[in-house]
């Protein structure tokens, strides 16, 4: 004991500053977090004072006198430690036989072990300063406060993460761009001469209606159809059906009354429309238009659809003669050929040729600019158009991606006859992240709408498919302009009497999104857009007109009737190689979330995932020890019950016997644990003592 004392003394002479500074340094290192700041301050201030004294006095004796209380504390501590050590010595040899898992003997040991070895800041203070009630209270308040603050921050972080924020990134790429598909339509569905037979009766009725309503005598082919009119008189079917949907005009204020033609009334008071009724003709409404031109066209095309739907095959009617529409074709200074285009027929826009649709050999421009794009000379002659259907002359062009259907009425561009139209393109891509980040679909497989088109998913494809499917479901037939679902047939009022009524009703619902098509159809995650801008110049020029037309007539059997309006030139080219990609990237990834959580955790507790593992271990240990203890207690109780001895006295002896028996390793472990403890414990106690001292001072 004496030796111990001197050892302590010896240490005291020069150790305290270093030791405590060392401790302080450790604390600084460990507690950059919030909790430790107070602690640190408290720890440092006396030490600094101490050090100054030290340097002044230079001797040890004065200091020993100065702090007798602490010294004695330390001595006793050391002594106790020493005794423990002594006890430990003989057991050292046995310590090597370590169990697989060893448990503490009591809760007290368990907690002591935990609080002296845990890495959670604050917890040590909470448990180890239990001698001082004030302190415990203070630390527990701090502990729970920081705990609360941390979880508040955690909540904010989680909320931010699960809102899946995206940051927009805009890449400016430049590559050699593959040329998009270009679809060019004639704006004339059929040669009038080819379909005149079918449309004959409709035309006659239309002429009659126009005559009745507007006093307009459309006498283009009067003699022609008049001749047929007589011999086709017998087939009254069409007339009958057309009569079901008469074109009428009526006053704005009382639309229900059908008026006779009354010329003196001011024109603007009239509305033109046609009647649509359901099958029983008890519910009718007027599809009205403010302009007669619109009304007549709509009415005509309504009947036209019916006629087309009845025709067995429209294939033999369309004239897919490439050379008679496109006179010259060049791409990138190279002549185009048959392999470069595909043909399809659109019931309104006529023969459509899609260039560069073949995925196997796509065009790429060698340079941006007009010379490296697609250059076409097209025929825009209008002599054989269906007069009531095509009111536009020229051609229609659309630029779209390969594998996307060409919706000519969505993104078309009309070409004027007699003009060279130069369309410059700028590509722009939009990439959405998909998943939980934004509402889009990769390939449309997760959209609850069947894709009726034989193409990739686009929003338009989906919306049209959705409408068509609804049409089939509601009206029992399919709209002619959209593809046919399997098992359905196109609408025709000879079979489906009220389909017009149904269609217009459905369309109103569709537009108001009662059908839910706009909700169901999500945007594709990857979208490519082409921004077009056009420049126009007169073509051919007055001087070159002669030879150009001459050559065209020679080569393409083009008979010049109205020179300038007969042809048009079209150039489509990339304005630049640069293209923008509007992308999304997650603004808050798992990695950053973890980093943020770690930051918060370190800030408030200085603890880590491993600290949580420690806590988990503590809880597990606690449970296991509870089990063991309760098991023991149960057995003890059982034994006492069996031996019928008085329970109070026996309990202790039982316990002792057990300890000596199977649980010897437990005892060792306890002791071993205790041996490691003092380093911390003593420190804590000393510190707390010092703290107390400070408090006294």
């Amino acid at each position, binding site marked *: 004991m004496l*030796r111990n004392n001197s*050892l302590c003394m010896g240490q005291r*002479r020069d*150790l305290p500053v270093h030791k405590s500074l*060392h401790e302080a340094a450790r604390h600084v290192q460990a507690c950059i977090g919030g909790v430790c700041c107070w602690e640190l301050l408290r720890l440092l201030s006396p030490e600094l004072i101490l050090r100054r004294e030290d340097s002044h006095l230079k001797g040890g004796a004065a200091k020993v006198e100065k702090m007798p209380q602490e010294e004695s504390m330390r001595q006793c501590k*050391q002594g106790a*430690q*020493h005794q423990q050590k002594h006890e430990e010595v003989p057991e050292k040899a046995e310590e090597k036989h*370590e*169990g697989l*898992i*060893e448990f503490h003997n009591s809760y007290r040991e368990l907690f002591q*072990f935990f609080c002296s070895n845990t890495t959670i800041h604050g917890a040590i203070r909470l448990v180890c300063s239990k001698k001082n009630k004030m302190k415990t209270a203070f630390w527990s308040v701090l502990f729970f406060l920081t705990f609360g603050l941390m979880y508040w921050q955690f909540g904010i972080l989680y909320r931010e993460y699960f809102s899946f924020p995206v940051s*927009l990134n805009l890449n400016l790429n*430049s590559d*050699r761009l593959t040329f998009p598909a270009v679809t060019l339509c004639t704006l004339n569905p059929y040669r009038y001469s080819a379909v005149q037979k079918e449309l004959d009766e409709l035309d006659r009725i239309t002429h009659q209606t126009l005559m009745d309503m507007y006093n307009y005598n459309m006498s283009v082919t009067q003699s022609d159809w008049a001749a047929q009119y007589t011999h086709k008189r017998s087939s009254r079917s069409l007339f009958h059906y057309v009569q079901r949907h008469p074109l009428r005009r009526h006053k704005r204020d009382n639309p229900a009354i059908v008026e006779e033609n009354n010329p003196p009334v001011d024109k603007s008071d009239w509305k033109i429309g046609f009647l649509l009724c359901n099958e029983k003709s008890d519910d009718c409404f007027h599809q009205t238009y403010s302009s007669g031109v619109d009304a007549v066209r709509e009415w005509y095309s309504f009947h036209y659809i019916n006629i087309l739907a009845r025709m067995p095959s429209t294939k033999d009617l369309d004239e897919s003669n490439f*050379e008679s529409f496109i006179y*010259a074709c*060049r791409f990138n*200074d190279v*002549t*185009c*050929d048959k392999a470069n285009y595909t043909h399809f027929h659109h019931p309104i826009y006529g023969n459509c040729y899609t260039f560069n649709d073949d995925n196997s050999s796509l065009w790429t421009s060698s*340079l*941006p*600019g*007009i010379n*490296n794009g697609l250059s076409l000379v097209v025929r825009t002659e209008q002599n054989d158009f269906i007069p009531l259907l095509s009111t536009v002359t020229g051609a229609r062009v659309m630029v779209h991606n390969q594998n996307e259907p060409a919706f000519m009425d969505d993104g078309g561009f009309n070409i004027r006859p007699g003009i*060279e139209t*130069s369309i410059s393109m700028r590509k722009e891509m939009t990439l959405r992240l998909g998943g939980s980040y934004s509402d889009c679909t990769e390939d449309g497989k997760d959209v609850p709408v069947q894709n009726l088109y034989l193409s990739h998913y686009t929003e338009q494809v989906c919306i049209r498919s959705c409408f068509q499917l609804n049409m089939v479901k509601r009206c029992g037939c399919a709209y002619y302009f959209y593809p046919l679902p399997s098992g359905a047939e196109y609408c025709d009022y000879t079979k489906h009497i009220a389909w017009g009524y149904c269609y217009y009703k459905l369309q109103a619902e569709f537009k108001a999104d009662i059908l839910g098509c706009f909700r169901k159809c999500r945007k594709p995650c990857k979208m490519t857009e082409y921004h077009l*801008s056009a*420049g*126009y*110049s*007169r*073509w*051919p*020029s*007055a*001087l*070159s007109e*002669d*030879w150009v037309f*001459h*050559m065209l007539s*020679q*080569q393409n059997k083009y008979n010049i009737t109205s020179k300038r309006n007969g042809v048009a030139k079209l150039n489509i*080219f990339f*304005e*630049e190689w640069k293209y923008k990609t509007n992308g999304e990237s997650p603004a808050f990834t798992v*990695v950053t979330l*973890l*980093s943020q*959580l*770690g*930051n918060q955790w*370190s800030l408030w507790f200085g*603890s880590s*995932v*491993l600290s949580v593992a420690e806590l988990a271990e503590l809880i597990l240990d606690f449970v296991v020890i509870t089990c063991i203890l309760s098991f023991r207690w149960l057995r003890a109780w059982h034994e006492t019950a069996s031996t019928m001895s008085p329970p109070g006295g026996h309990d202790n002896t039982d316990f002792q016997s057990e300890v000596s028996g199977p649980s010897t390793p437990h005892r060792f472990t306890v002791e071993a644990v205790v041996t490691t403890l003092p380093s911390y414990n003593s420190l804590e106690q000393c510190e707390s003592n010092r703290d107390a001292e400070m408090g006294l001072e």
Partner: protein
Amino acid sequence: MAAGRKITAKIKKTLPVTGPQAPTLGELMRWYCLNTNTHGCRRIVVSRGRLRRLLWIALTLSAVALILWQCAELVLGYYSASVSVTVRFQKLRFPAVTICNINPYKYSVIKEYLSELDKETRSALESLYGFSEGKPKVRRDAEDRNATAYQYLEKVPLLRFEDLTRKEATDLHSGHKRKIESNIFHKGSTNIGDPQNMIGFQLCDPNNSSDCAVYTFSSGVNAIQEWYKLHYMNIMAQIPLERKVNMGYSADDLLLTCFFDGLSCDTRNFTPFYHPLHGNCYTFNSGENGTILSTSTGGSEYGLQVVLYIEEADYNPFLVTSTGAKIIIHDQNEYPFIEDIGTEIETATATSIGMHFTESRKLSEPYSDCTESGADINVENLYNKTYSLQICLHSCFQKAMVDHCGCAQYAQPLPAGAEYCNYKKHPSWMYCYYKLHEKFVKEQLDCQQKCKEACSFKEWALTTSIAQWPSTASEDWMLRVLSWDKGQKINKMLKKTDLANLMVFYKDLNKRFISENPANSIVILLSNFGGQLGLWMSCSVVCVIEIVEVFFIDSLSIIMRRRWQKTKKWWNSRKAKQSRAPAPGTGPGKQGHDNPACIDEDLPTFNTALRLPLPQENHLPRTPPPNYSTLRLDTTFTEQLPDTLETESR
């Protein structure tokens, strides 16, 4: 001997410089684990039970692995850029507007150079399609046919292909058939129209007549135009520049009226610019005189309004087939690539072009592969303007052209020391050019790889709308006034198809500025690192340093020391064979030497101070609490070293 001992003592003292001077690696690890602030380690030592310890080792190691993985992820994602889009309302500088007539030179003036070529073209048209422009010409052609040989048709004959599979063609000029032995290049593989109507021409290598390339065209219009252009470029290459400038349109010819920002302007505001294919062009607001104009407000009233005089009657019938003007809107420092991306203006219409200005800036290396100034690109900039991808590609092609064919292509600027191709001097250039161009298209010239895009660029998005102009009501007086303005030079009324009205204006004065910024800064990266380290192990940079210190420096020193001891032991044992007497003497002797040395050199640090209790230590080695300040314990071990050594050696 004494000196040697001193040295060894010194070495011994200095060798374990810092940290714990544990005798074995195990002790060191134990010390480290007990004292480190890194979580998990302490548990490995402190935990009781093998499985428990193993579990903690696994947990700690997995935490380390996770840290490494996440940090690697952070580092990999470091070079990402975020984009900021700012829309600012400000007074915008008006861009440069370059205006050209589509027809490069007045046909009436240039006719003297082209008469021969035109004559041959007409005759080719006649023989091909039976086209003649009028009787007098036919008569003249008939006269000429005997007199002059067709030099152009001779050089590059136009051929009509009856059947491509038979490889036979009719020479249009001579009329007799000729066999095409060469490999046919015909641009575009299969014929579309009638096989009889396939027109093309053949370009041969003059040195090796069997090496030919045949170009066919689906349309005769294209064939004739291409053929004409080929010869036209040859002719133009021989005419000196001043002459060409004189033949083109002057500013007074082209511009009838000019209005800018509500104020009248005239030809002095336009800078001439000579373009090889479009002749004289005029750049408004080129900034050449140092001032760059800007508009006070948006809208068509405050932009540039010009009326252009497009003299359609003076057009070259074969070279250009469309009528109008071409304009391009570009930055003052940019080269106007008018032939590539110019916008056409139609005659007899008013074209209004609304602009929307966007400026973009990318981050260069290492964020993306772009160039700031083009100085790092291995292609000489032939254009006297700021770098752009287009400029680079054109320059690269021109350079390759000069290298391969020995002359420069007409449409692009001349490199130093080269001259434009014409077949008087370079008879094979056309063949060479077509071959080279094909290579270029197929990316075999390496130009596309060499050229990088520029990091910052400005663009003006254009919206074009057109209207009939002048209206029938205003046509009369307007044409009369404009004719009067035009002056007495032409004593005729202007036709409305000769005029084009052009308006260029800012739609709004909002400038959209798109710039890339680094998404991560070093501060964010470090704080994320800190977060990861803290999350998994509550580690810090100090911990990392500690790990480095313990696991590398200290462990190494221990190993080294061990080695040293072993060799010394071996040496001692060898010496001991001779005499065992000096062996016990070394220990105390050394200690005696050691201490004074310490006192001499060292200040009273805690290392030296801790040596005081040493004598007691010898009696009771385990008395000092080993776990309190392990540093102390370790020093005692060093002092003990010679002793243990001795005992071992014994």
